[in-house]
């Protein structure tokens, strides 16, 4: 049973990562920097609970703030460019963060072991959950409480005026600008919100894996982050969740019985999915169909 709890934890954390990219993608920007914010969140939260002995929730709060502030600061130079240049700029930022942690060592003596990040060897002994007697189920419930909170927040944002503004910028910058929207402010806000979510996700990630190192936060993780919302469709937050379940639950865990062939199918199925459903698995059309399916009786009674 613990295996499935573990899998559900992974799905939860990756959903947070995907949602952080979702915010930025709504404004039409492709950011491969989310893995960088995720890494910052992971290291900050880990250092706070291990070295400073903070409780988890305030540590996550600080990691969210730090990652959000970084995202905001990166947003200013990076969002001056768009399209391919932005992809490259954010890849470079993500890689720079990863390389920073590759060379970053800050350790304190605790008893007979040294704690803290140690360059290429990574950051071990983030043992907050076992030390405080959290079971796998507790951790899972905690993660999903956070995921539910973030998803509810984004769902509300989506339906509010702010969501309409984000989409307007994403669909057509020129049109949005001519209706008086400050597109730079909108993009940077989206980037900041994305950074905050990635920071929380990273902080949780550090605590359930107990060992983080720089290779975990490379370009591959960044690609996964944008893969979830693009594959799931940008029409609403559940697309991202569906794509995370599809990738982590089905493609990675579900196909394990296929052995070596699983990895081959992984890339192939992503290509196929994009060919068949270029606007994502759960696009606007699919949402409409689902709505008709569930609310058909009500509609008929209205008519």
């Amino acid at each position: 049973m613990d295996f499935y709890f573990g899998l559900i934890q992974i799905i939860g954390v990756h959903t947070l990562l995907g949602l952080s990219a979702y915010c930025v993608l709504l404004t039409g920007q492709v950011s491969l920097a989310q893995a960088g914010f995720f890494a910052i969140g992971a290291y900050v939260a880990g250092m706070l609970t291990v070295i400073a002995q903070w409780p988890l929730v305030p540590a996550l709060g600080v990691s969210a703030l730090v990652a959000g502030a970084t995202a905001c600061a990166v947003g200013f130079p990076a969002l001056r460019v768009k399209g391919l240049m932005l992809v490259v700029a954010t890849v470079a930022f993500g890689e720079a963060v990863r390389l920073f942690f590759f060379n970053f060592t800050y350790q304190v003596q605790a008893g007979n072991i040294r704690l803290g990040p140690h360059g290429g060897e990574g950051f071990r002994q983030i043992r907050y959950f076992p030390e405080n007697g959290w079971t796998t189920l507790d951790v899972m419930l905690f993660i999903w409480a956070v995921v539910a909170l973030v998803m509810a927040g984004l769902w509300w944002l989506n339906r509010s005026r702010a969501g309409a503004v984000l989409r307007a910028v994403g669909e057509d910058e020129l049109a949005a600008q001519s209706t008086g929207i400050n597109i730079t402010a909108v993009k940077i806000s989206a980037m900041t919100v994305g950074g905050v979510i990635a920071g929380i996700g990273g902080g949780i990630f550090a605590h359930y894996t107990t060992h983080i190192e720089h290779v975990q936060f490379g370009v591959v993780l960044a690609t996964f982050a944008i893969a979830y919302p693009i594959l799931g469709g940008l029409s609403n937050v559940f697309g991202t969740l569906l794509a995370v379940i599809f990738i982590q639950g089905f493609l990675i865990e579900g196909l394990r019985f296929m052995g070596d062939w699983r990895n081959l199918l992984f890339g192939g199925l992503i290509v196929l999915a994009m060919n068949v459903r270029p606007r994502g698995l759960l696009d606007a059309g699919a949402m409409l169909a689902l709505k008709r399916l569930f609310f058909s009786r009500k509609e008929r009674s209205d008519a």
Partner: protein
Amino acid sequence: MDLLDLIDAVQSVADGVLFGATYALLGIGFTLIFGVMHKLNLSYAAASIGAAYASLLILAGIEAPAIFVFLMAAVAGGVIGGLVYLIAFKFIPLANPLATLMSTVGLLLLIDEIIVHSTAGVPLNYPALFSDVIIPMGPFNLRGDLIFVFALGCVCMVVLLLLLYRTKLGLATRAVSQQPIASELCGISITHVNVLTFVLTGVVGGIAGAMTGAAIGMLSPLLSLPLTVKGLIVTVIGGLGSIPGAIIAGLVVGGLENFFQFFRGVSERDLYIMLLLFAFLIFRPGGIFPTTAGRD
């Protein structure tokens, strides 16, 4: 720093510049595809490495001198380039840049995995030409294999430039990259040009992949991600859409990479390249040779 260190530093930068020819070729490939399709093909470097692998596979089947490996890599690169277009671009609507971005990422993973699957993840030795030749130049030595790689890269670039600026195909390619609708009205088939660009960049990529293999002495699927990142950086530093820019940026990035590796060690090397890119994005977002604005 004494004189000996200085000589070593210059030597390592020179090696880097020679290897930078690979980055330059990859940068050209990214630039050309982006120019024609206005889409990013993230599977490009992986396809190049795949072509180099394919050339080894062909060479294992038939008896041929080692120089043929480059020819085979070019042919395989062209074929793979065409396939990439068919699989990741043909059936996806043009108005949806995110979908093609994702499909090329999927293809990148797929190509990597096909390589891992067919070689059981073991790096393969790649035939290096003239690796026993060392040309002494005063206190410096130039490695024969790197010189060969550099020379091959230069020949490729010259051929490519001639193709783009002296043939009808090149004219069509440049027309489509500037004004797709106007060029279609002039009777140029956009699909035709797109396919040809993919095959052409595939050939260039195949040669670049083979050059990487020859310069490093081996091939590994682990090369494809770093090469993708370096190729993209070269494209941006050189100026998007500028071929001379990509060439200069490729050589500069190759040289600086070894420069930083010499002075700051291998673990910090790439960090400074990223910072260089950021400096460019802030102070000169158009790259070394910015494209003239106002085409739309």
